[in-house]
C-alpha cells in the first residue's frame, strides 16, 4: 500500500499542557482511517497540526504526493496544504454562512485558478474557460448530493444535515487526494448517519480519495474504517483494525472508565 501521509513524533504543547504527545500516524492511499477517543483527547489538535492551523512544537508531518514524492509539510500554511491536496471539514461547521450554497462550493475552486486578478476582472477568454470548467464541476458535485436545487439559498438557511453535507462537498471541490473529516456525523440521527456512511464510501470510490476522520459515532467508525487510532489525553493508546480496537481493554477503559469494584 502506498503511503500518503505520515506523522513523526508530532507533538503539540500549549504552555505547560501537552495536548498531543509524539503522535505517529500512517495513512495509506484509499484507506479510511479513523481517529477516535474521548473528548479533549487531542484529536482536533492533531487535525490542526496536519492542516497547518497549528505548527507542531515538535515532530514532523510528511505528505507523499501523486508522483510518490515525499514533502515535509510541517508548519506550512493551511492554504498551501490545501493546494497540495489535503482538504478538511470542521468540527463546528465553518461554512460561509451569508453566501449561497453555490458560492460556498465554487470558492473552493479558486485555489486551482491560474488566471490573475486582472484577467479575472476583465473576464478574459482564458479566465472564462477556466471558470466554465469549474462551474461544470460544481454543478456535478451539487447534483450528486441533491443540493443543486437549493444552490441560491444562503448556506446558513440549510437544515443541519445538509450543512454538513455541503461542507464535505465544498472540501471535495478542492480536488483533494486526502480528505480530513472532523466529526462528520455529529448531531445526526441514525438515518442521516447511515446516509453519510454510504456517502463516504461512495466518494472514496468515485474521487479516488483517502479519508482520515475523527468520529464519535461508533457504528459509523466500525462500519467503514480500515484502521483506527485511539487517542486519550494526547497519547496513542491503541491502533489497529476494527476488531482489534473493539476488543482492546485500554480503549474500553478510556471510554467507559475503570470499574472500581472489578
Amino acid at each position, binding site marked *: 500500500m502506498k503511503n500518503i501521509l505520515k506523522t513523526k513524533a508530532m507533538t503539540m504543547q500549549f504552555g505547560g499542557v501537552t495536548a498531543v504527545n509524539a503522535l505517529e500516524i500512517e495513512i495509506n492511499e484509499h484507506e479510511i482511517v479513523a481517529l477516535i477517543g474521548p473528548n479533549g483527547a487531542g484529536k*482536533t489538535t492533531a487535525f*490542526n497540526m496536519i492542516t497547518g492551523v*497549528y505548527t507542531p512544537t515538535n515532530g514532523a508531518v510528511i505528505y507523499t504526493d501523486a508522483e510518490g514524492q515525499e514533502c515535509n509539510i510541517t508548519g506550512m500554511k493551511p492554504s498551501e496544504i490545501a493546494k497540495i491536496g489535503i482538504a478538511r471539514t470542521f468540527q463546528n461547521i465553518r461554512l460561509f454562512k451569508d453566501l449561497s450554497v453555490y458560492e460556498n462550493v465554487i470558492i473552493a475552486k479558486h485555489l486551482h485558478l491560474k488566471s490573475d486578478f486582472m484577467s479575472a476582472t476583465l473576464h478574459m477568454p482564458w479566465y472564462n474557460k477556466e471558470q466554465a470548467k469549474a462551474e461544470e464541476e460544481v454543478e456535478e458535485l451539487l447534483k450528486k448530493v441533491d443540493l443543486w436545487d437549493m444552490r441560491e439559498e444562503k448556506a446558513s438557511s440549510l437544515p443541519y444535515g445538509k450543512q454538513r453535507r455541503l461542507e464535505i462537498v465544498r472540501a471535495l471541490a478542492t480536488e483533494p487526494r486526502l480528505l480530513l473529516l472532523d466529526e462528520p456525523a455529529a448531531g445526526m440521527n441514525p438515518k442521516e448517519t447511515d446516509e453519510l456512511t454510504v456517502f463516504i464510501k461512495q466518494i472514496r470510490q468515485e474521487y479516488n480519495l483517502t479519508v482520515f476522520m475523527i468520529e464519535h459515532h461508533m457504528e459509523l467508525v466500525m462500519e467503514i474504517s480500515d484502521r483506527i487510532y485511539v487517542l486519550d489525553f494526547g497519547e496513542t493508546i491503541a491502533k489497529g483494525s476494527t476488531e482489534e480496537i473493539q476488543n482492546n481493554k485500554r480503549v474500553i477503559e478510556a471510554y467507559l472508565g475503570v470499574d472500581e469494584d472489578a
Partner: protein
Amino acid sequence: MEFFQGFLNMSGASFAQHMVNGVSLGSLYALIAIGYTMVYGILLMINFAHGDIVMMACYFAYFGITIFHVPWYFTFIGVIVATALLGAIIERMAYRPLRDAPKNSVLISAIGASFLLENLANYLFSGRPMSFPDIPLFSQNIAIGSIKIQAISMVIPVVTIISLLVLLHIVNHTKTGMAMRAVSKDYEIARVMGINIDNVISMTFIIGSALAAIGAIMWGIRYPGITPYLGVMPGLKCFIAAVIGGIGNIKGAVLGGFILGLGEILIVAFFPDLSGYRDAFAFIVLIIILFYRPTGILGERTTEKV
C-alpha cells in the same frame, strides 16, 4: 553631522529638563492608556471615544473654573465625577446594545461615538481654541539648580503614582476588582458564576474615565490650548502605548505610556530636525511591536482555539 548636533551638544541641564518633560508626558499617557487597556481587557474592543473623553474633561474644567468661577479644587472633583459619568453613559448607549453583534459593529459604534463627541464639542463650544484655566499654584516656575520647571511637572508624577496605587489596590484587593479580573480572564464563566457583567463593565468604564479625567486636568494645566480635537492624537498614542505594554495589562499600559512619552520627548530633543515627525514616533513603535512581539512587552502569548 548637523543632524546629530543636537545629540552631541546637549548639556546635562538640558538633558535633565528633557527627562522631566518626558516623565511628565509619560505619566499623562500612562493614565489615559489604562482606560484603553482595561476596556480592551474585558470587552476586546478599542474605545475610540476614550481620547475624546479627555477632551470633554478639559472643557468641563474650563466651564467650571473660567465660566462658573468654582474654585479649582471643587471643579476638579466635579470634572472627575462628570467624566466618569460620561464614560459610563457612552458604554450604556453605544456599546452595551451591541454586545452580541459582530465585532465590526461595535468598532463602528466606537468610531461614531468619538466622531459625535468631537462634533458636539465643536458645536457646543465652537472650534476656537480655548485656554485651560490658569492655576498659578501649578503653573509657577520652580528653579532647581540650573533648571526651571513648572510646578505641575513635579505634581504630575506624584499624582500619577498615587492614582496607580489606588487603582492597583482596587483591582487586587477589593471585590469589585476581583470581579473585573475574573471577567477579563473569562467572560462566560464569570457570568455563569453569578457576577453581574453589566455592573463590572460599567465600573471599568467609570474607573478608566476617572483616571482619564485626572490625566486630562493635568494635561490641560501643562498644555493649555483646548480644541474639540485635542483628544485625537493623544488618544491614538495612548492606545498604542497600551498595545506596546501588552493590551489588557494595566502595568503594561503604564510601561507603554512611559516608553512613548519619554521616547517622543527625547527623540525630538536629540534630533530637532525630526520634530515635525514627532507624532509619527508612536506609530513606528507600534509597527515594530506588532511585527516582533504582537502581544506586547508584558503581554501573554495566546493561541486561538480552532
